[in-house]
């Protein structure tokens, strides 16, 4: 049975069916991501001073991933244009470039950025024990300068027993009185070899940089994880349309394949547009 309106427009809508379908789907996606972004913004506005993590993500890596997604949007639209011009070979190469960009993005995210966070440790100190860890927090100087106090000690978890954590400190806690440590470092500094011993009784909560660490990382992993799933879905669809099975469709009805690439390209652009908002919100601001 022939599926109607895959190429020609429906008389009542004036569009072919898949285009209506993808825009309805994208409308629901706007609501999904819109709700998550709203939640993030309200959580951040409501956070107590000094408690919202800042400058913990690797900006150069995030910038590179942003550039990769922008390039992939260019290659997918060029793939579609090549199909419109009936240049299948060019389409094949542009689609391969798009798939490669998507896979690089996912690899960087899953094999580098996320694991780097999973290895990092943070201990929030109880308010009545902050003075005990002043040499790692530098709050006296910070208050004199009108800066927000530090309440967390971060680094790599060296070891722990029933009563203590041993943490290889981040530079910000290894040398808290250095004026260079007053601001977040968007290009991460390596962990120092200075070890701090923190008593568990003095710790309000301690965790690796997982969603349980803070509302910031909970939002970060939720939104980037959901976004990553969308990227994966897009890559799977592109791989299907890049495989020889699509060439058969191209030979039978090239416009039908062009329309399929157009709707998947619309989805891909939406996913990339979400990242355009994710990057400044989580990495820069």
């Amino acid at each position: 049975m022939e599926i109607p309106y895959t190429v020609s427009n429906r008389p009542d809508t004036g569009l072919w069916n898949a285009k209506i379908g993808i825009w309805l789907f994208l409308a629901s996606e706007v609501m999904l991501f819109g709700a998550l972004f709203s939640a993030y913004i309200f959580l951040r506005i409501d956070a107590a001073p000094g408690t919202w993590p800042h400058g913990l993500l690797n900006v150069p890596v995030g910038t590179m991933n942003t550039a990769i997604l922008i390039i992939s949007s260019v290659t997918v639209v060029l793939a579609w244009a090549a199909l419109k011009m009936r240049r299948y070979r060019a389409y094949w190469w542009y689609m391969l470039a798009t798939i490669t960009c998507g896979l690089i993005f996912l690899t960087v995210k899953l094999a580098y950025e996320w694991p780097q966070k999973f290895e990092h440790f943070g201990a929030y100190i109880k308010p009545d024990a902050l003075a005990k860890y002043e040499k790692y927090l530098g709050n006296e100087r910070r208050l004199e300068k009108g800066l927000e106090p530090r309440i967390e000690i971060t680094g790599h978890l060296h070891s722990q027993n029933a009563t203590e954590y041993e943490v290889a400190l981040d530079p910000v806690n290894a040398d808290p009185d250095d004026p260079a440590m007053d601001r977040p470092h968007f290009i991460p500094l390596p962990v120092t070899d200075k070890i701090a011993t923190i008593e568990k009784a003095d710790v309000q909560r301690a965790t690796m940089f997982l969603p349980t660490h803070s509302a910031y990382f909970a939002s970060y992993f939720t939104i980037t994880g959901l976004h990553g799933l969308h990227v994966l879905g897009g890559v799977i669809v592109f791989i299907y349309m890049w495989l020889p099975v699509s060439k058969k469709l191209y030979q039978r009805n090239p416009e039908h394949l062009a329309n399929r690439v157009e709707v998947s390209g619309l989805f891909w652009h939406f996913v990339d547009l979400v990242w355009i908002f994710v990057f400044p919100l989580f990495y820069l601001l």
Partner: protein
Amino acid sequence: MSLKGFHIVFIVFSTLLALGVGLWCVWVDLVEGAPVYLAGAIASFVTAVALVIYGVWFYRKMKRLRIIT
């Protein structure tokens, strides 16, 4: 909206992002005085200009090929 229209919208947002990143780099450079941020600002502004040029090229090409109607 077709893919070509959405692509132009996307390029506009990407250009705004590149400008935003450039301004952010200028701000961080003013606060920290690290030359690497100034280099980032220059790279971001160059990227913004490149995106505008690409957007105009893309629109004209689509129009010439009658893919934009």
